[in-house]
């Protein structure tokens, strides 16, 4: 427990003070309460034994569908692939109109315009990965241009990566300023793109780093904090998500503002998704249980949710040929 950094941040003047220099920012971030890894793992494991059945399961499945950022981030992505993904996002189950649409589709920059056109007024957002995703190894100018490109094409959401190299070498201020600069680009020219900041927790390695990076991103103006690119293993895990949710909760305590959370990568089954929802429910509570504040970055998850949903309505398991391959 700290010399309460929280109260420092709550005061705008204090925040300026904290970000005055690398040294001040380091003192602040290193003054955050530590995370005991064994304890955090144990808490996440304990919550994952919750038994979600019948009505609770039905609720969780539909909520999870609504929270999905349906993602394709491959070198081999084509217009055809993205069209088909957009159709899936709008109407996940062709046989069942009661299945809600997903929250967003998430694509590379060059496919944003196409995805926007496909999704039209459906309410499904388009998210673009930006800032030299996934490595983030480019100059700030290139990263900002990359972001500007996505924003001008109409991206509703920008999923940026932080500079892990700068973070791990202790240049926190550089990371903070870069996020803030990207955030500024998100609102250029009257745009209002939401900024998700990917920490790439698999490269940060310790939970202490995850907590510090979470605070750093929120201080820099992140609308969402996100675990992973999906290109590094491990991607999202329950304990990492727990630590980040705790940071969101503490941030709200300190500033009154909510920041969203998005685990991404490795979430494949309905059971996985329900465990994340339980984590949200019992860590930050109901306020975050909406696509506005919690997303699941996933691709194959959606079909498993649909299969489980079919099973719940028919009482039988169907099979992989009863959901679409996209």
């Amino acid at each position: 427990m700290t010399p309460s950094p929280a109260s420092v941040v709550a005061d705008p003047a204090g925040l300026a003070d904290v970000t005055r220099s690398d040294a001040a920012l380091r003192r602040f971030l290193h003054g955050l309460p530590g995370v005991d890894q064994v304890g955090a793992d144990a808490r996440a494991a304990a919550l994952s034994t919750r038994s979600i059945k019948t009505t609770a399961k039905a609720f969780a499945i539909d909520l999870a569908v609504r929270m999905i950022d349906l993602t394709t981030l491959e070198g081999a992505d084509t217009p055809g692939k993205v069209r088909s993904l957009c159709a899936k996002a709008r109407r996940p189950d062709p046989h069942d109109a009661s299945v809600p649409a997903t929250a967003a589709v998430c694509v590379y920059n060059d496919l944003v315009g196409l995805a926007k056109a496909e999704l039209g007024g459906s309410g499904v957002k388009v998210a673009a990965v930006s800032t030299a995703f996934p490595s983030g190894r480019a100059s700030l100018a290139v990263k900002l241009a990359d972001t500007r490109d996505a924003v001008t094409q109409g991206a509703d959401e920008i999923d940026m990566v932080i500079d892990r190299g700068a973070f791990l070498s202790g240049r926190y201020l550089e990371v903070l300023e870069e996020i803030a600069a990207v955030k500024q680009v998100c609102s250029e020219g009257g745009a209002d793109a939401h900024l998700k900041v990917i920490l790439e927790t698999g490269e940060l390695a310790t939970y202490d780093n995850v907590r510090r990076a979470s605070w750093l991103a929120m201080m820099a103006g992140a609308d969402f904090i996100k675990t992973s690119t999906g290109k590094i293993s491990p991607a999202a895990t329950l304990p990492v998500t727990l630590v980040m949710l705790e940071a969101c909760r503490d941030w709200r305590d300190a500033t009154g503002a909510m920041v969203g959370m998005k685990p991404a990568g490795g979430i494949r089954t309905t059971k996985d998704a329900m465990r994340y929802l339980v984590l949200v429910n019992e860590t930050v509570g109901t306020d975050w249980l909406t696509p506005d504040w919690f997303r699941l970055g996933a691709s194959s998850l959606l079909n498993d949710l649909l299969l489980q949903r079919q099973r719940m309505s028919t009482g039988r398991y169907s099979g992989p040929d009863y959901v679409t391959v996209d």
Partner: protein
Amino acid sequence: MARASKPKPFEYAPAPESRAVVDLASSYGLFIDGEFVDGTGGALKSVNPATEEVLAEVAEASEADIDLAVKAARRAYTRVWSKMSGAERAKYLFRIARIVQERSRELAVLESLDNGKPIKESRDVDVPLVAAHFFYYAGWADKLEHAGFGPDPRPLGVAAQVIPWNFPLLMLAWKIAPALAAGNTVVLKPAETTPLTALLFAEICQQAELPPGVVNIVTGAGPTGAALVAHPGVDKVAFTGSTEVGKAISRAVAGTDKRLTLELGGKAANIVFDDAPVDQTVEGIVAGIFFNQGHVCCAGSRLLVQESVAEELVSRLKRRLGTLRLGDPLDKNTDIGAINSLEQLERIRHLAGVGDDEGAERWTADCDLPAKGYWFAPTVFTGVSQAHRIAREEIFGPVLSVLTFRTPSEAIEKANNTAYGLSAGIWTEKGSRILRMAGAMRAGVVWANTFNRFDPTSPFGGYKESGYGREGGRHGLAAYLDVH
């Protein structure tokens, strides 16, 4: 972005574990010499504390029954068990451990029915630890000459064992596994309110084809226990329970050549420094005092928190307690089950009332208590001082007393300023402070950045009025061998 939807609460549907796995008889006899026999005494009713439903009648062993059980244990000791090689004894213990695993669901459901503890605890903590204990001591049975007690340590003979109601099957395992591994035979009396899993364990002994008389289970209340420990045919007495009864047993065996180990009450300090990992500390406090409804002798019932962070920590703790789910012990999502008996509930209510009268500030988690059964909502007293009874007496329920300290030395003084000394907890990110504090605690078990973790390899036992002797680990063997 427009905030489209107002979130709806995520309500967990009931997820009850099935009772069908348990085959309850309407009445049970005593397990003596490998057989279930009718007792010659009266009968007791065992009640489900979550519903007040009578689960079964059990025999109340009379002095004559005790005599038969002790004689059966003696015969088994002399003729079979003491002559058997350690490797052979180990086979039986391994077999018991495996059957416990195979029947784990049945044991867990029955434990939750009879005791009131949540199924997630009986399933994930109690029963796995029971199996682990038998596996662990099975491994020692043929290695006693290498345990550091000399070349050929001998067993004591017949052990009389009396256990409490808070961890009925786990305390049975802590008693029976080392006793049998060391070559003793036992007569065990389970607690009056929780005899049913011990009787199911008797069935497991039959299933494992344990030689008759090696394990005998005699049910009953206080007088049965008193008769058992006083029986002249007993070589060793092991008791876990209240300090008051422990003292009475100590008086009863004084002047005899019976060996005695006692594991009694506690009022453990859980000490939180200002640099503690705050979220995990909150979890540790919850695990320390609300695990098993606080019916834990080593519970972290006294929270000693550094004054500079007390307010923040307590507010985080209260928020966390608001998420605890109290109710049906068989529901897989229940965190807090029922208080084991009306008698215990009244004791908790009384001591909480004393806390009010002494001027401490009571806070209770906002949760509905079921209409039937014995329930007590998680409760925190702040503004508690060392002079308050709720800081000194064991409540044995889901009631936490919060005290503050200013310096490490003050924390040590306050933590040790108790008649008990069973356990302590230390929360800090600073390793050197953990080592200094652990060395200064007059307590048998000291946890650092965790609480209420158990393992068969780790010895467990108390200082001062928390008793003497150690259970678990290599040290636990000493209590059942003729060594000092």
